């Protein structure tokens, strides 16, 4: 039992943290987050050079990391700095592209960016509510459909798209994955700003014609891979969420120590003290949930999915508490654009809207509990 990171991983985290502290301060964030592109290609390249993208992938994929703890260390550091760059899509798509060495090499080098376009407009957080289809045409495929709220879709050079090849709405069988160049004919990307900074996009596929090599992984049998890569995405988001919580907690504690009202620092008011004790306690619980999920990411499916749903539920619940208490205790100033706090609160709240919210994962945890496999 050891809750310390290995030396290599700790060094990576320190390097990344130092870089972001110097080069990705709050002013930089604000500039990038509302910019036209919604991310900085320069920053992306610099982070690639530091090895951050490589840390997200295993050696078989040309990286030097890829475990649950590698992912959580990186996303914690990214979360602390509110980094909006396209790490999540690159992580999720990249994990499914382990056998595309050439592409992954570019990805790890930062010269090619990936998006993972799976969820659909009517599907909410459901992994199987897919209406996008891919039909064989000669040697190749023709894709049609729509994908919803893909993070940093406009940034992507290649989009990994899921489609029904032999199944129907709501079924996990019959799904396949396709690698779609962002500039393929029939691909429309409709980008927009996100409320927590950065950009997202709707993907429209209209008779997009692809070659045979566009198929990624086993035909009709992509679901297990999709579920597993979403699990990795959840570990990433949960780690990011816990880092954001810690920033909010520390900023609120600082404010409580320095803001005076009625002649004393407001941190002397016991009602606020006890509420902050609850917030601090819950954040430690959330941190434990993320550790559990990261540890389970490389294990068997049932334990992995239970642990990631438990973690996403926990960070959703604790995230709302933390964001709302941080704003409330700051009072009016906590509502302002000027203060970093409000941006952390927005990010934390929006994490609950990615890859399934608190309710979704509680229900999923319950359903997994009734499945065979309980230890």
């Amino acid at each position: 039992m050891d809750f310390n990171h290995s030396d290599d991983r700790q060094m990576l985290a320190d390097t990344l943290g130092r870089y972001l502290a110097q080069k990705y301060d709050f002013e930089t964030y604000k500039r990038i987050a509302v910019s036209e592109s919604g991310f900085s290609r320069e920053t992306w390249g610099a982070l690639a050079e530091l090895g951050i993208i490589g840390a997200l992938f295993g050696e078989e994929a040309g990286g030097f990391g890829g475990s649950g703890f590698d992912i959580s260390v990186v996303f914690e550091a990214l979360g602390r700095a509110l980094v909006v760059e396209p790490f999540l899509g690159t992580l999720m798509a990249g994990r499914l592209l382990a056998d595309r060495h050439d592409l992954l090499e570019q990805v790890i080098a930062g010269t090619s960016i990936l998006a993972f376009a799976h969820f659909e407009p009517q599907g909410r957080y459901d992994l199987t509510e897919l209406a996008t289809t891919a039909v064989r045409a000669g040697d190749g495929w023709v894709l049609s459909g729509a994908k919803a709220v893909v993070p940093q879709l406009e940034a992507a050079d290649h989009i990994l798209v899921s489609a029904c090849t032999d199944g129907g709405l709501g079924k996990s069988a019959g799904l396949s994955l396709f690698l779609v160049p962002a500039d393929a004919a029939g691909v429309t990307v409709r980008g927009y700003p996100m409320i927590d900074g950065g950009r997202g996009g709707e993907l429209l596929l209209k008779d997009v014609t692809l070659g045979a090599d566009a198929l990624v992984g086993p035909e009709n049998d992509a679901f297990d891979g999709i579920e597993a890569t979403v699990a990795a995405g959840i570990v990433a988001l949960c780690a990011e969420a816990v880092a954001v919580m810690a920033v909010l907690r520390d900023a609120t504690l600082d404010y409580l120590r320095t803001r005076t009202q009625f002649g004393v620092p407001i941190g002397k008011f016991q009602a606020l003290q006890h509420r902050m004790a609850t917030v601090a306690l819950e954040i430690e619980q959330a941190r434990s949930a993320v550790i559990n999920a990261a540890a389970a990411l490389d294990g068997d499916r049932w334990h992995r999915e239970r642990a990631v749903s438990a973690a996403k539920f926990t960070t959703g619940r604790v995230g709302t508490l933390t964001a709302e208490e941080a704003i409330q205790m700051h009072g009016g100033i906590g509502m302002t654009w000027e203060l970093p706090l409000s941006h952390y609160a927005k990010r934390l709240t929006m994490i609950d809207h990615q890859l399934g919210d608190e309710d979704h994962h509680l229900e999923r945890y319950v359903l997994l509990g009734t499945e065979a496999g309980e230890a």
Partner: protein
Amino acid sequence: MDLNFTSEEEAFRAEVRLFLAEQLPARIADKVRTGKRLTKADMVEWHAILNARGWLANHWPVEWGGPGWSVVQRYIFDVETALAHAPRIIPFGVSMLGPVLLEYGSDAQKQHWLPRILDGSDWWCQGYSEPGAGSDLAGLKCAAVRDGDDYVVNGQKTWTTLGQFADMIFCLVRTDPKAKKQEGISFLLIDMKSPGVEVRPIILLDGEHEVNEVFFTDVRVPAANLVGEENKGWTYAKYLLTYERTNIAGVGGSMAAFDWLKHVAGAQKKAGKPLAVDPYFAARLAKLEIDLENMKTTNLRVLASVAHGGAPGAESSMLKIRGTEIRQEITALTRRALGPYAQPFVSEALDEGYNGEPIGPDYAAPVAAEYFNNRKLSIFGGSNEIQREIITKAILRL
């Protein structure tokens, strides 16, 4: 025990509804219903419509232009206008300054300012909070020094809602720096066009410009603009803060917002079925609806006590807390209902005349921003912590 309104009250409700059907511009109601931005012109237009009917200052005495309504009529009016998606009445002139002038103003002040509130000649804003004096309002520092027939004002106010539109500001200023903090405060009316007044926007977390900082540098204010006595301003300030709080629970607004939430939850799909019938979401909706029904009756109980001559008092602190909790939970659930589509935020989509294609469902655009914006409900107007302090002292007697 009788929870029903009288037939006279029901007739009044019908009258209000008829008025709203005929007079509330559909263009404006649509903007309110769908969460679009209101312009100053929209708000001015609605005030003028109400004023034409004599319903704008509905809690003022008849001799000053009030309609002579009971508290129950005012409650019915508040609820019906909210359910019809009318804009709220901007409170600074009508509901805040008006009552203070009526109670403490000189005849000359009343005759000058009150009609101008009604006819829209003056858009008022509020100068209470300061950067160092939030919950501890009496800790304010903005100073006014008597100089001949004027006061000279120096200092800063903040969180001044819609101050960017204002012609006038009513301010709490410190006129005796040596007195105990509640005892050196005066209540002053200041022309925003005076030299030395500067308004700077504060952008909120949703990107909106709704509140402002107001800076005063050697601003000369005629002494005639002092309300009541010098150094007695704290009394008037407290009167303003406790006056007319029968609508503090915001029942009508929450009813309208809850209806909207049910609409959204019925339209959103989960596994092909309406989200509203998902057991988890349905339970959240039901809890909220029950809380709202309970609060409606609590509100009526307070109202009935006022109608029978009781004072609303600290009970309104309970209504403020629960009312804002419910409203915040409504916006939180509406956000939750949207799923992934809570994330996109196209600010221009909230402007009238925007005709871009909506991102996701057509009701999605304002939802997350409203959730974040509504965090203010438990902070502004006496934070919920301050309300708990009032309950502690006045009701719990601890």
